[in-house]
């Protein structure tokens, strides 16, 4: 098995890690970097618990070979707010955007990507974008309210 030295940034911090060829991004983030905010759910790219941003692009860390992030910058839930909470994070708390919280890191990452691309998404746009992030607790109503609240002009 070949080994590869990767240089990347995780939530703004430069990292250098040697990984085996078969390492997946989810394991690089959680085990090698100790950032356990990103969760592993279904492991087949369906549930979205492992959603991360790679150079701003929304991806499944459970499906992405770690070698693909060499030279790129990764954002996980731990890196969303530099200080305090983002309006989206705060809205998730106030609107019941989560219950158990296991899907929440992925939901927040996906919704952040959505709001970057469409700062004022309509309900259909929220649903089309967020359908890749499963939540078993909320029925999604609170998530939709939270995203709409965060997108509301203040």
């Amino acid at each position, binding site marked *: 098995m070949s080994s590869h030295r990767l240089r990347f940034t995780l939530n703004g911090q430069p990292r250098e890690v040697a990984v085996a060829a*078969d390492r997946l991004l989810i394991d690089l983030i*959680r*085990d090698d970097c100790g*950032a*356990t*905010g*990103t*969760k*592993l*759910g*279904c*492991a*087949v790219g*369906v*549930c979205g*618990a492992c959603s991360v941003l790679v150079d701003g692009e929304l991806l499944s860390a459970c499906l992405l070979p770690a070698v693909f992030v060499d030279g790129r910058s990764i954002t*996980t*839930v*731990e890196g*969303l*707010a530099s200080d305090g*909470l983002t309006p989206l*994070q*705060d809205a*998730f*708390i*106030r*609107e*019941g955007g*989560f*219950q*158990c*919280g*296991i*899907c*929440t*890191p992925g939901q*927040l990452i996906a919704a952040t990507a959505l709001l970057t691309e469409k700062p004022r998404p309509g309900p259909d746009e*929220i*649903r*089309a974008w*967020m*359908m*890749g*992030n*499963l*939540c*078993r*607790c*909320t*029925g*999604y*109503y*609170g*998530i*939709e309210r939270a995203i709409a609240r965060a997108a509301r002009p203040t």
Partner: protein
Amino acid sequence: MTSVAEAPGGVLAEPEYRVEGRDKVTGAARFAADVAMPGMLHAAFVASPYPHARIVSVDVSAARALPGVRAVLTGADTKPQRFGRRLQDWPVLCSDRALFIGDRVAAVAADTLQIAAEAARLVEVEYEELPAILATDAALAEGAPVLHPDAGSYAFLGGTRSAPPHPNIQGHGVREHGDVEAGFRASFRVYEHTFAVPRTHQGYIEPRAALVWLDGETVRVVTTNKTPFSLRNHMSVSLGIPESRIVVDAGHIGGDFGGKGLSLDEFALYHLARATGRPVRAVTRYADDLQATNSRHAGTITLRTGVDRVGRILAHTSKVVFDGGAYAAGKPVATLMPGDAMLTLAGYRVPAARVEAMTVYTNHVPAGHARAPGQPQNAFAAESHIDLIARDLGIDPLELRERNVVRPGDVDVTGQPWHGTDGAELLARLRGSSRYAPSLAPEGRPNWWGWGVALGVRHVGRGKASLVLRTLPAGRVELRTGVSDQGGGAHTLFQRIVSAELGIGLDRVAVVRRTTDAVPNDPGVGGSRVTPVQGTAALDAARKLKARLAALGRSLEDAGELEVTGEAAQEAHEASMYAYVLAVTVDSETGQTKIEDATLVADVGTVINPVALRGQLEGGFAFGLGQAVMEELRVEDGRVVTANLGDYKLPTIADMPRLGIELMTERPGPGPFGAKSVGELANPAVGAAVANAVQDACGSRVMSLPITAEKIWALLPAKQSR
């Protein structure tokens, strides 16, 4: 014992802000799979590929020889140890026979998960395949193999197991009241219908995980189990270790929905930790969680009901046969059935009834508990049955329900007087808040738009709990509890109760969860228990602290170090009701349904956590909708073939219809300030509401869950073309 609202104070009107909210939105909340220890090993299991097989031999030499492998254990190392929530029938590792595809035969601990998985592959097991029982009637047929010939030697926690009428029966019950035969004789019509319900998975997004290590003489366990004190007890009994030497740490749990009261890996992990002297962690592959843990029971439900000319129920019999799978270990109830297995016509006045239910051993994946155990199955059957009766009698289905719904003091299907929601009031509210207007179109003349109604019943949780409240400097208090956070909002509930009772700001009440060694015994999360039981204990603690302060003549600011234990023993038999009206459209060519409108009216009593309460109802609806229209843990030849979330579909945000919720808050419940329970209140009746609306729309009556487009299409009276 009720604690009716004594003006709970302004706090309950304040916006709710989850105590663990910040941790959950920043990634700081720690779940079991997030915990790593120095020197930690990773576990993998060898699973039986056969539904029923004798284990002839197990050769672990190749697995042991793999570099990085630290221990390989087989059933020979763990027998005769078995585990379970009530009946301990599930072997830690199989030693003589494997009873379902996925049953664990060997366990490996290795330096990495990859090595452990590779070693598991290298374990050579020779099996002799045995005839498998893949249907409940086959289990009870003459000459069927007995799956648990040594059942008499299994531990049964907290009592003695009543002898089952057949060795392949896990649990069985019959309940009768009134003169059933006379009721049927007096009936104008007698209706009998049989319904089928599939296996479903709880569908939590977090697969099970556990980490076990030995800390001197103490066994330490980090787990996704939502009942840590029970797990401590199970481990103590199974492994022969005193409870005082077991510490269970169950913090944030990534969804439970009933499934995570049963632990599987912790027992073998203990042996691996002991064999290696290292911490050992297992994180279940989601595919294995679907294939080999404990699902909701599949079953067949036959209901027979006699009614008079105006549709009043006179007599009822039912037979519920659930496929319990290979082990009964997942069921915590002494009957070894899902809690509501015998509640086949819940919510109605039933003067005479004979109800029979059973769970049967098969060589399928074991069945255990899932959100409102037994209710979704029985509610689908009963509420479909009632609708069929109404339609046959030419009575508006909602009106038929109005004629039969229980009111306080009525005798219900259990033969007991009803304590709980006034059903008539609930249905009146439902009529008022929905646009319900069924077409009652004659069969064969569908209009593709239909209305469906269904009602549901769930008990308010019972049990005992205690927790500790102590003072902190600067007029603050801290509540210490063993209740895990599975998402229901327990800790925020406690904070709001204590804050309201003490009349202090929310910011002055801290809630901390502690491991099993540091707090009093707690029954865990489940059974619609947290608000009425643990919530009452929190209120009791606050009241005791108030009394102590009054006795000492102190204020909270100069209280000094005080500590009180709040206790609750909530035994009132009380139940809540809820009902749905759904409007659906059906595609005349494909059978595809779309829910156009949904209204839920729920009797919730006093609202303590408004956001969490709404979330439970909304989430319960979504949970019910998934199991109504798309979810089925399909098993073929004993094998679960929906083995990933690409095939076992859960609803997405794009699948959710508009939902209007109306709360009934006037009638106080037995919980703190008059609160009731809502965690299992909204999911069970959704299936029947959909089935009823579909029939109203197009004439197709689907007698099994899930209600798929294809089933509707196959039943369309005339396959219309557009």
